């Protein structure tokens, strides 16, 4: 399942997408959980009883601000969350 967490508002679209099918057999021990400086990700059991990663509820409406420190306007390197997830399950829309 592709889970998109975030929102669209007057300033743009801010979604983090997680391919949860890849979380089920995560080969890197859910490295994303510790990689995010804000601790935005957590592990949970979804509606189909699979253990997957999701974006914590309290961050879902403020992604543009919470992710800002990893996205400077210049000199932006790879995102820590996406880099930690070597299977490539995490993507950002902006």
């Amino acid at each position, binding site marked *: 399942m*592709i889970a998109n967490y975030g*929102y669209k508002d007057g300033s743009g679209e801010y979604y983090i997408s997680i391919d949860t099918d890849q979380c089920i057999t995560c080969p890197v021990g859910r490295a994303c959980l510790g990689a995010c400086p804000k601790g935005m990700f957590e592990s949970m059991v979804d509606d189909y009883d699979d253990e997957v990663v999701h974006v914590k509820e309290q961050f879902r409406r403020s992604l543009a601000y919470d992710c800002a420190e990893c996205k400077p306007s210049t000199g932006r390197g790879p995102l820590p969350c996406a880099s930690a997830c070597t299977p490539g399950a995490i993507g950002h829309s902006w």
Partner: protein
Amino acid sequence: MNAEAATPAAGEKPEFWRWAENVWVDETKDWRSAKTLTLGIDVGSVSSQCVAVADGELYAYSSMRTGSNSPDSALNAFKGIAGQTGMTLNDVHFVVGTGYGRVNVPFSHKAITEIACHARGANYMGGNSVRTILDMGGQDCKAIHCDEKGKVTNFLMNDKCAAGTGRGMEVISDLMQIPIAELGGRSFDVDQEPEAVSSVCVVFAKSEALALLKGGYTKNKVIAAYCQAMAERVVSLLERIGVEEGFFITGGIAKNPGVVKRIEKLLGIQAMATKIDSQIAGALGGALFAHTLVQKQGPAKPLLA
């Protein structure tokens, strides 16, 4: 929404946004003869539904306005069915809570997200060819992809902004002083299709609508502009995950042809028809999940509210 503005008492200000609460029971069935009786309770931000499923088939539902607290709203929705069928919570084998108030349903055995429940409900209502679901709820909007079994494969939700939601339509209904059930039909009664209102933020759309009225727009033209704006808003959400054939709309706004027809025109695809109230999809999905859980685990112990 199955709306008629409730007739106000003398001296009372009419509330045009008020849609009628309703209860439906399949009189050809009797829940007492069912081997499995399950409930889905969807406590939404604007309305709460309770659906009873007997042996995996839709038996009854009620759709009520959500009150100031979720437990009471859930109980009120159940009482809608109980009052017409004589059913009590002791007779029910499993209850699934869903919607934004799902964790506050005092008599539910399990909480399941409305995303999974809407997909399951739409699969029942529209058949196994449903692939893309647009749920236009009271205060959020969801785009969902599912497989032939109604399992979610992709979803996107916007609950930060009330644009493109039922509450937005209620605000316009009150502003125009036109019963909410009439908005869709009236939006086509215009000499020329207007541009969409530039902002679909509920707060700003309201002031923009007033400005249009002052500028000479008829009420119908303002409604048409607002319906178009809502349609454009939700279509942009849908396009983010893509639209596949087997397009199904759930939620109260599925009953507003002014928005639905414009969405269909923008997408170039027809929404699937259903005879079942589109507003109960979440609760229906919950009741169907409950039925599956009874098949797997057996009946749960009754939890009294």
